[in-house]
């Protein structure tokens, strides 16, 4: 797929599609610095909308709730998902195909269905709604995503190094923590990053299981969007955008690094 140049009309068409995909967000960011409350006219540069954000307690609380939920649910989902991926990639057992099918159910189920079905469970079981119930819900949809990402990485991984370690006298536990985990680390990290972003961004599921007292950042943003008041919405959106962009770069770097010292050692 190379050598020949693309036809002129195709390049133009593709450029327009890229514009459609990115221009709306650029406009949003640009107008978060506009010194005018209502008008779409450019009235000069200001950072006052950002200053307003810092004064709002609900936004700071929302950010704190979101980080708590995202960190907690990512940690649990990453461990559980990685273990499931290990079982699926490394072991033969009865019911394997059913297990793989089960892993895909959360991925294809619409978010709103996940949200209301969990609400039904929590209400019937008298589980108090709040940050705890949100975390439980986020783990439930994130396990599958972690398992699928780690499973893909495991399939491309050879077992030579583990076998070598065991021949050299390591038992299974040592081989797992000193060889398998470092080798698998980029996969685990990308799974965790995916889980973190999905948890941090989720509005639909969260809104159903949050109850009346807890509010994550997307819930605060949603309320602001619905009221549609001032450019503060643009400012908070820009903050969320920048936070996720930093996360992608971090995930990308983490995914590339290979912390396994054996590979870095010079071959004699």
């Amino acid at each position, binding site marked *: *797929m*190379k050598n*020949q140049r*693309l036809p002129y009309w*195709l*390049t133009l068409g*593709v450029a327009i*599609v*890229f514009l459609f*995909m*990115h221009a709306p*967000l650029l*406009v*949003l960011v640009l*107008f978060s610095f506009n010194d005018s409350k209502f*008008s*779409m006219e450019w009235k000069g540069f200001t950072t006052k909308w950002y200053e307003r954000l810092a004064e709002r307690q609900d936004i700071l609380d929302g950010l704190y709730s979101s980080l708590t939920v995202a960190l907690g649910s990512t940690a649990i989902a990453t461990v559980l*998902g990685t*273990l*499931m991926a290990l*079982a699926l990639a490394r*072991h033969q*057992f*009865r019911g394997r195909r059913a*297990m793989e099918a*089960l*892993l895909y*159910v*959360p991925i*294809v*189920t*619409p*978010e*709103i*269905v996940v949200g*209301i*079905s*969990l*609400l*039904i*469970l929590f*209400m*019937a079981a008298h589980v108090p709604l709040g940050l705890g119930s949100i975390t439980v819900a986020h*783990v*439930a949809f994130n*396990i599958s995503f972690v398992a699928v990402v780690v499973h893909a990485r495991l399939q491309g991984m050879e077992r030579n190094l583990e076998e070598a370690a065991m021949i050299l006298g390591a*038992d*299974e*536990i040592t081989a797992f923590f000193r060889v398998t985990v470092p080798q698998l680390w980029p996969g685990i990290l990308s799974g965790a990053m995916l889980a973190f972003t999905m948890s941090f*961004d989720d*509005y*639909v599921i969260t809104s159903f299981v949050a109850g009346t007292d807890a509010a994550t950042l*997307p819930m605060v943003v949603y309320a602001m*969007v619905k009221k*549609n008041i001032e450019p503060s*919405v643009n400012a908070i*959106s820009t903050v969320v*955008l920048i936070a996720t*962009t930093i996360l*992608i770069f971090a995930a990308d770097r983490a995914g590339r690094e290979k912390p396994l010292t054996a590979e870095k050692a010079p071959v004699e």
Partner: protein
Amino acid sequence: MTARRRFLRFFHERPQFKAWALLAPGLIWLVLFFLIPLTMMFGYSFMPRNVYGGVDFGFTLENYGRFFDPLYLKIVVKTTLYAIGCTAICLLLGFPVAYAIARGGRFRNFLIFLIMLPFWTSFLVRMYAMMFLMRDSGLINKTLMDAGVIGTGFEMLSTPFAVLTGLVFGFLPFMVLPIYASLEKLDHALLEAASVLGARPAKRFFRVTLPLSLPGVIAGSLLVFIPALGSFLTSDVLGGAKEILVGNLVQNQFTSARDWPFGSAASFVMMTLVLGAVTLYLRVRDADEAMGK
């Protein structure tokens, strides 16, 4: 023998047990917080409504019967049509983009990054960005008025155009990535062979490139169709009260309308459509693979 060695030997002698020990924590979580809630929701969809929220005990088919009411039937049909329309537009826009990236030479990585970027960005923020452009006093209306194309701002939000544009804007990356993946794997030798054998570029595209990218096209279509069918935020933010899809109907039953059984039934109508799409995908994929061999 130390505890550690006893532990290892126990699992070494029972490989099945070891696999299930690894699976158990995640499996229990998925059963408790995924399968059981879905089963409960299925049960609720057959029960009479309790006016204070929740359900009364009993059995009724009335919740599903209501979908024959033209009012609700229209919502289901409309949602399906929007999902199909969104998938078709994404395919039309996404294929050329994937094709251009696959041939993008040294810009390839940067272009892939541009496709990945919205994929990772908050969906809510992206829908707000669309709303910001489209609202009555938004940039599109203002630009058109300044240019003298229109006299007064016209209403773009709460129209099918707004919802469909929002859906395409939201899910286009899901279409581009799988098509790109299958185009990238395409063997250049096959294209050269076609040229050597006298195929013109257009024929070469339709007889070689397009058929070989079919797995990506099918996967991309499913990845767009499913979330479009289950979408709630897009129509909520861009459609207002006028553009109601099944997702909004479900949400409404669990919040203001307080009719949980009907909401559960609506969810299962949605799930049935999704499972239908997945089944169709598996059929087509298997047929495609069988043809390849």
